[in-house]
């Protein structure tokens, strides 16, 4: 387990998702802290391209040796990209959750809820990765 800090170009929810906004496109994943807490991730299921989701809705399921968790999006919109690599190799979520382990991209007309989330420093101060 690494002692890296979370990337500054993302925002963070209390339920350990990260959101990166680029124009009207928001990429969603889970944090290193969450991946560590879940332990070895063995299964990832994501809603398919084109799925409309409401703000607060689930975009997929992440399963580990220990538990099964839904992954939620704070923004509503349409899923425009899903990461096929992480479905094929769920361990990417443990090794590179902010990079190769991204989950979905959502096109939204309202990215405002993301700006209300924690920044990296606040998130890391609450959830230190050991």
């Amino acid at each position, binding site marked *: 387990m690494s002692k890296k800090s979370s990337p500054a170009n993302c925002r963070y929810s209390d*339920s350990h998702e990260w959101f990166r906004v680029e124009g009207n496109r928001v990429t969603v994943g889970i944090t290193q802290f*969450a991946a560590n*807490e879940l*332990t070895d991730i063995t299964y990832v299921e994501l809603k398919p391209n084109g799925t409309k989701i409401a703000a607060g809705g689930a975009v997929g399921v992440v*399963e580990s*040796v220990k538990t*099964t*968790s839904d992954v939620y999006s704070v923004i509503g919109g349409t899923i425009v990209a899903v990461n096929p690599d992480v479905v094929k190799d769920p361990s990417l979520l*443990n090794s590179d959750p902010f990079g190769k382990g991204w989950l979905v991209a959502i096109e939204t007309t309202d990215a405002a809820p993301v700006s209300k989330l924690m920044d990296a420093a606040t998130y890391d101060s609450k959830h230190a990765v050991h």
Partner: protein
Amino acid sequence: MTTATTPATALKKTPFHQFHLDHGAQMVEYAGWSMPIRYGSIIEEHKFCRASGGFFDVSHMGRLRFSGRHARRFLDRVCTRQIFGMTKGMCRYSLVCNERGGCRDDVLVYCFDEDEYLMVCNAANRDKLMQHFAEQKGDLVFKLEDETEKTAMAAFQGPKVMEVVSSMSREIPNLKRYRFTEKNLMIVKMIVSRTGYTGEDGVEVILGSMTAKLALSLLLKEKKDGSDVVKPIGLGARDSLRLEAGMPLYGHEIDEDTDPLSAGLAFAIKLDKGADDDRIGGFIGQAALQKIAKEGVKRTLVGLKVEGRRSPRQGMKVWKSGSAGDREVGVVTSGCLSPTLDYPIAMAYVPVEMSELGTPLAIDLGSAKAAAEIVKLPFYSALR
């Protein structure tokens, strides 16, 4: 996504606590104890135990010593297995049942002498059993001491463990399964039994808490360059190892409302105990279990091989297709994506008439159903 972290304060610490911290363990609360769930990857630890060897801190398990004139008689009253006839150096797996034939706990009883025994019980059931035993003592004369917190217990499991042990002792590798011996290593006195909870060969060791750290360093002789044949393994892999080995876990396969006959544990029940010898006496729950045996169990524990990659979890429903449509017929008690077999496995209760090997069933995963087939238990064992 939700995660739960439990503060490590006010929890009991085992004598190996500092060892866990030194080895980077993630500590979690388990039955009031701070225990290592893993040191790195649970899956890697699981595979390492199957390929080489693992050290498990199991000091949280209860160790209760019964000694005195009526110790044996008392144990025969609370244990489903016959204790009478055990001789020094024998271990027996037993259930402790309630009057309804449900399981208060599953335990291992060690015989040191005809009036001295040690019982190893589950951590979560220790207080409950101590209370039960106090209530059942009656006029019987014996001493019951809870030695849990002045001792430590470690399991060493895996195909290379006995090689390592043989460099320290000639006697231990010759122990049969479910036999133990008392041994001195340097100044450390310990109880070593050929037992375990992984489906691998190996030993479990009980020793004084003061000398536990020293003994562990003598036993492990860590090189710390990655070449160790025995490495520490956490509770996470302990659970998936025992599940592959088809071994019950209290709170999953057995509990106060589940009888051991349905759980496939008939071997550990002496149904006619005391019938022709009143020195032995009957056991609590005997009448209820005799009735269940006579009428036949209605449901039984089976192993399921599951399609896909998802982990079945405790409480998920088991379904069966039929001419009248799909219907719910059973419930999962434990499940995981088996690290050894690389497919999902589960243990589940299903009606006896649907428990034949090869029966096609399905598990409701919530968003979808996964096909499953009844397979033989254990899923995996190096021991048979």
